[in-house]
């Protein structure tokens, strides 16, 4: 694949967003190249989730532009649904469909949205479940799985749509410590395979390992963009230094 493609996979230009008086996104400009893994770090309430969610328009923005491969995100309707189908999203709380088997969770969107045949969708879903290590849970409903298994199934559900880019919003924050690693390993594997990803996480070791670039947010602004090595050993901004110190103090 062409890693030097001039058109970024995702590009945000001067994005602004308010919740009432709260200025949650302040002049955010950012681009993610094809195949790049960008990790977003920052204190609670800094706007990381809002940024992530506005990329597939789960949140609307007040001004600025968001582009996927150079095309602006449509406002609504079928066009927006088509665009969302190309952006995978993994949530902190897994959000599997509670009334369906794990397998049906994964085949639903390929059948409904991509109009794949049931059989083909099923075979591919089983392969994906195998890949994330929960093939043997395919016929259970989500509530019968552990958190780590649910999150891996949720990743498989996103992958089944063959997204151009994957967004992760704190994918391991709701997990028991012993399950965090199994989910991070799946994400690291995706990184190795060249998936374009934007990852919000508090797992610093993981961030350092998979990130091509680290973005530090605070108070609705991008305060620092850096390589993972520089960011973690010698951050350029005082705010990032303070943030990293506060983590070590814990």
């Amino acid at each position, binding site marked *: 694949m062409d890693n030097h493609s001039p058109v970024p996979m995702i590009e945000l230009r001067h994005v602004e967003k308010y919740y009432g008086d709260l200025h949650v996104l302040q002049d955010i400009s950012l681009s993610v190249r094809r195949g790049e893994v960008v990790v977003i770090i920052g204190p609670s309430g800094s706007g990381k989730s809002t940024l992530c969610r506005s990329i597939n328009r789960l949140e609307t923005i007040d001004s600025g532009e968001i582009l996927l491969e150079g095309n602006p995100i449509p406002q609504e309707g079928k066009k927006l649904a*088509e665009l969302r*189908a190309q952006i995978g999203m993994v*949530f902190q*709380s897994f959000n599997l*469909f509670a009334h369906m088997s794990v397998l049906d969770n994964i085949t639903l969107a390929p059948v409904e*949205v991509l109009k794949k045949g049931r059989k083909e969708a099923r075979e591919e879903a089983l392969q994906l479940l195998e890949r994330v290590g929960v093939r043997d849970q395919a016929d259970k409903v989500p509530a019968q799985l552990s958190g780590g298994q649910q999150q891996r199934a949720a990743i498989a559900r996103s992958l089944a749509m063959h997204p151009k880019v994957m967004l992760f919003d704190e994918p391991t924050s709701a997990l028991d410590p012993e399950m965090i690693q199994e989910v991070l390993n799946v994400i690291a594997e995706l990184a190795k395979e060249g998936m374009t990803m934007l990852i919000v996480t508090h797992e610093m070791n993981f961030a350092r390992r998979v990130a091509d670039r680290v973005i530090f947010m605070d108070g609705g602004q991008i305060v620092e963009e850096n390589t993972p090595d520089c960011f973690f050993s010698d951050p350029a901004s005082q705010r990032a230094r303070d943030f990293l110190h506060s983590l070590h103090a814990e």
Partner: protein
Amino acid sequence: MGFTDLLSKYGAQYFQALLTTWRLTAISFAGAFIIGILITVARVSPIRPLRIFGDIYVQIFRNIPGAALLILLVYALPYLQIVFPYDVCVTVATILIPSAFCSEHLMSGMNTISPGQIEAARSLGLTFLQMIRRIIIPQALRSSVLPMTNLLVATMLTTSLASQVPMRPRDLTGIVSYINTHDTGGVTAFVISAVLYCLTAFAIGKAGSLVDRKVRILR
């Protein structure tokens, strides 16, 4: 007249009346169910006028007494040159009112769906209708089996409105009025109908809990 006399003389007609009540109930509930789902879809749709229409519909038919609605259909509409046969009026009244309650039950069934699931569906590229069909309605239905069971019983009781108009064949309430105007059935005539209503309600309740246990969503 005693219990046995009543049964020997009117047994066949009671049976006929029971079947009539069952038939009215089945038709009304089926209609209420379908309209209830459609109204619910309107109430959660992205189109504002549809949402408003759905809410107004529910407010009206949830709050109007069945008898008043029936009188309106039977005696007021003819002034507007609209005349429906009696059985149509009864069926319409006993569909409209339960459909509003059906929608209310579905709305509370929907509240059991975590907002995250809707966000996941949207981010997978599902359209509103796909989401309604595959995620929202199935979960709402599966979490509202018990209230729907109660609604089915309530619908059956509402069909006793049929006795307020000269409709043939008579339903379980109609038969009581008939016997008591032609004969002296007294309270006993009513008790027989009441028992038949209760037995039906009991059977519906049992079936409802069986279904609920089978389809309830593990969370």
